[in-house]
């Protein structure tokens, strides 16, 4: 029986063999793998790209003090971006399930309509939730828009829910009983984090401090975005750090929400503020990608073409 980490290793190897860069998790709080710059920014613009990474994803409101067998504050997603999407993308996806030991001939797979939309990121896509024997294991999305920009190279985004997939493979009813490594359970590794984070998120997080932090990060992002139009050497401009400020705001918003500090009327307005920042960053990034480089040595790092 594969451990949690075996499943990760195998999926990463599988996608690495299909031309994906294997990235490490993004090192700031995000609500989903989509929000990491490896997805949010890389899907923009004309450059093909293939990447896979595990992304711990934080959703404060989903925390259950470690008491619910299926709900987690922080769960791990395997995020795969194939830009542009290959024609046999679904066949490749199904083969990845076989790679972790699921004999497709003995199971029931269904693709159920599920179109994805993130108002905060100005992003949306068309796709399915993939059901394995009645369990949703993957969100499959053809990106259509990101940061308010229509995407010309349509990427396929595969998001695997790693805990539930492993619980399925190991036949466990609770994610905490999953074997993470030989002799070590998921609960051994993560339970304290779930409990303590739930206490913080629901009970102790200081609302005025969160609002203040939200304002500071928003201000910093706005300040940076305002500098861009007149900034002389575009490729040096800190778009990525500006985006990090957006992610901070997004996480703070989620925290405030789980503290019950955002009224319904405020909610739309606050989402609108984060969205405005995200759209601004997306525009800068796209502009930067297509701006003429000053000299070859000044080409921004990390934009080499990687793909099939």
């Amino acid at each position, binding site marked *: 029986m594969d451990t949690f980490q075996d499943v990760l290793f195998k999926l990463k190897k599988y996608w690495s063999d299909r031309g994906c860069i294997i990235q490490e998790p993004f090192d700031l709080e995000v609500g989903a793998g989509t929000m990491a710059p490896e997805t949010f920014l890389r899907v923009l613009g004309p450059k093909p790209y293939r990447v896979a990474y595990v992304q711990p994803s934080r959703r404060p409101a989903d925390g259950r003090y470690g008491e*619910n*067998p*299926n709900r987690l504050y922080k769960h791990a997603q395997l995020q795969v971006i194939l830009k542009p*999407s290959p*024609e046999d993308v*679904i*066949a490749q996806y*199904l083969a990845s399930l076989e790679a972790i030991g699921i004999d*497709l*001939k*003995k*199971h*029931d*797979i*269904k*693709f*159920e*309509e599920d*179109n994805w939309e993130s108002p905060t990121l100005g992003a949306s896509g*068309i796709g*399915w939730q993939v059901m*394995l*024997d*009645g*369990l949703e294991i993957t969100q499959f999305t*053809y990106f*259509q828009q990101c940061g308010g920009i*229509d*995407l*010309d*190279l*349509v990427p396929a985004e595969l998001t695997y829910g790693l805990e539930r997939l492993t619980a*399925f493979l190991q*036949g466990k*009813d609770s994610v905490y009983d999953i074997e993470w490594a030989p002799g070590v359970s998921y609960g051994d590794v993560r339970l304290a984090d779930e409990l303590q984070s739930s206490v913080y998120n629901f009970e102790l997080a200081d609302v005025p401090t969160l609002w203040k932090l939200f304002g500071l990060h928003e201000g910093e992002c706005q300040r940076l975005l305002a500098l861009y139009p007149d900034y002389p050497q575009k490729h040096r401009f800190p778009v990525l750090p500006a985006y990090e400020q957006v992610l901070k705001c997004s996480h703070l918003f989620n925290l405030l929400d789980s503290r019950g500090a955002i*009224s*319904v*009327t405020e909610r*739309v307005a606050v989402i609108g503020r984060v969205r405005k920042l995200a759209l601004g960053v997306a525009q800068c990034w796209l502009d930067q990608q297509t701006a003429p480089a000053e000299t070859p040595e000044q080409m921004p790092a990390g934009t080499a073409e990687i793909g099939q």
Partner: protein
Amino acid sequence: MSVPFLLEIGTEEIPDWMIEPALAALESSFVQLLATDRVPAGTIKTDATPRRLVLRAAEIPERQPDSEELVSGPPVSAAFKDGQPTGAALGFARKMSVEVSALERIETPRGEYLACRKLTAGRATRDILSEALPQLILGIPWPKTMYWEGKNGARFIRPIRWLVALLGGDVVPFSIAGVASGNVSSGHRQLGAAQIPVTVEDYDRQLYENGVIVEARIRRTKIGAEIDGMLADKCLKAREDHALTETLTYITEQPTAILGSFDPEYLSLPAEVLVTVMRHHQKYFSVEDDGGALAPHFIAVMNTNADPDGLVRRGNERVLRARFNDARFFWQVDQQKSLADRVAGLAHVTFQAKLGSYLDKTRRVQKLARKVARMAKADPGPVERAALLAKCDLTTDMVKELTELQGVMGGLYARAQGEPDEVWRAIYDQYKPESMEDAIPATVSGRLLSLADKLDTLQGCFRIGLVPTGSKDPFALRRAAQGVVRILVEGKLGLPLSKLANGDAALVEFLLDRVRYYFKDVRGFRYDEVNAVLAAGAEDLTDVESRLVAIQAVRPTGDFEPLAASFKRIKNILRQAGYTGGAAIDPAILEAGPEADLHAAFERLRSRVGRFRKKKNYEPALEAIASLRPQVDLFFDKVLVNAPDPAVRSNRLSLLHELFSESSAIADFSEIVTTQ
């Protein structure tokens, strides 16, 4: 010669609910294409699975029929001079590429002209299809489309991955978004080959051997038969669920039913919760015993042919267990706070930005509920209490998780918290009827609450200008209005429509639209009957219904339609004369014969008709009016309304006017479309 045609559009998984409308659109545009090109269509048949839309025609001619056209040229008078063709004739013959001797002469109203019979050979059907199919396919309307080949690329519901187009033995060549048509289909993702060469003749068999049942009808039957088969000897039966069967038919290429079980201890949860989890979240049929009680089983339909090791069953059982655990947790936690204690919390749930929170809505609905209860002469107590608690379940974890259970959960929690029957049942039923098939609330309080809730939404949205346009109706106002109409009619609530609409003329008109739809399309009354009855008054819908039933009953009798035709004539005469009534009939100047006879017959009937009408006994009232037909006919036959003597004329108009008003309180007969 005629040959069969096969078109298969191979795609990634199409949402199940979009498939049938898409097939209908595909078929109708194909028929239209053939009609435009004068190709006889023959029998056309469509089929689909989630991954393919299929259109087949049994026989299509290989060629369009040849066509003949008569092109007219110069007049004969200008075409020949002294028996010799002029330049005009020679020019025309040259243009048509024939000798002058081959030209014909035709007679026209303007004289004799030269003409040329031009034969055009019919085009090959294959060429016509090859040109037209890409547009035809991409023209299928979908609720939401996507692009996959760049933002200026083709748009379809999901990416097109292969195309089969065969006319007889030949491929009809075309391509869409880089996919060229051919003769290669694709099998079931797990059970078949990815590439299967097919012919028109062996298509079904090839796909069947590769795990795909092409016909929805067969998949549907397979699901039903397997469910019956597995429950037959267990004294159990699956709850009928047509919509779920359709979903499963179109979400599978190879449906196979399996029976799973859950721990009977979950049966202590409300059946509504268990069924909703199974149906909406897992697409399972629920199972009941002989007595109709929920049994600890479910039926899942797989998209594969077997579950030999029971892996799929166990997987589904585990998922259901987790969901039931959640539900049990919510059921317990939610009851730690009573509905009454949740009212204040509704201030934090937005109903609509301009219409305020659900607390605001609750206050308005309470007031409105009291008002309609008084109008209906019902006890306002239970309705008001129900209105106060009605929306509180929106703050419960169960409803946040299982939104389909709003209202129902409120009712169940209210019952558990000791609210009286009238109150909890009203809360339980508040969103009914949710569709045309759904029943209206079971109790009077339930009907009044549902009415008040829907009217508040309608009044509010109309006040701030959120009126549905075209297919856009984000607040489901049509459904709300339809619910209002059905509750009034089927709940026998004779409340005045204009008061319910709070005097908003646009809202009254909106409701009347639903009234027309309801009586015509749902109840099956003829449109002219509905128009006739509504023209005579539409305030009280129960009365509208009674009048419609009466008209429908009287209409087949021999006197009715001819009388309706006469009433149309009366209405025209009165309108032309600008007569609006008022003057009493003077019996002294009635001419003996048909005029006096009509008057006498009318007078004899009048009080009887009035009595019937008062008692809303419309059928005998209409029969009595219809019995006047011989006198009316004779009157129009023999009497000149437009008599030279103004007094006589005006007296005759008065007679007609009174006759007309007496009947038009029931229906405006002039709206009846007669065959005469």
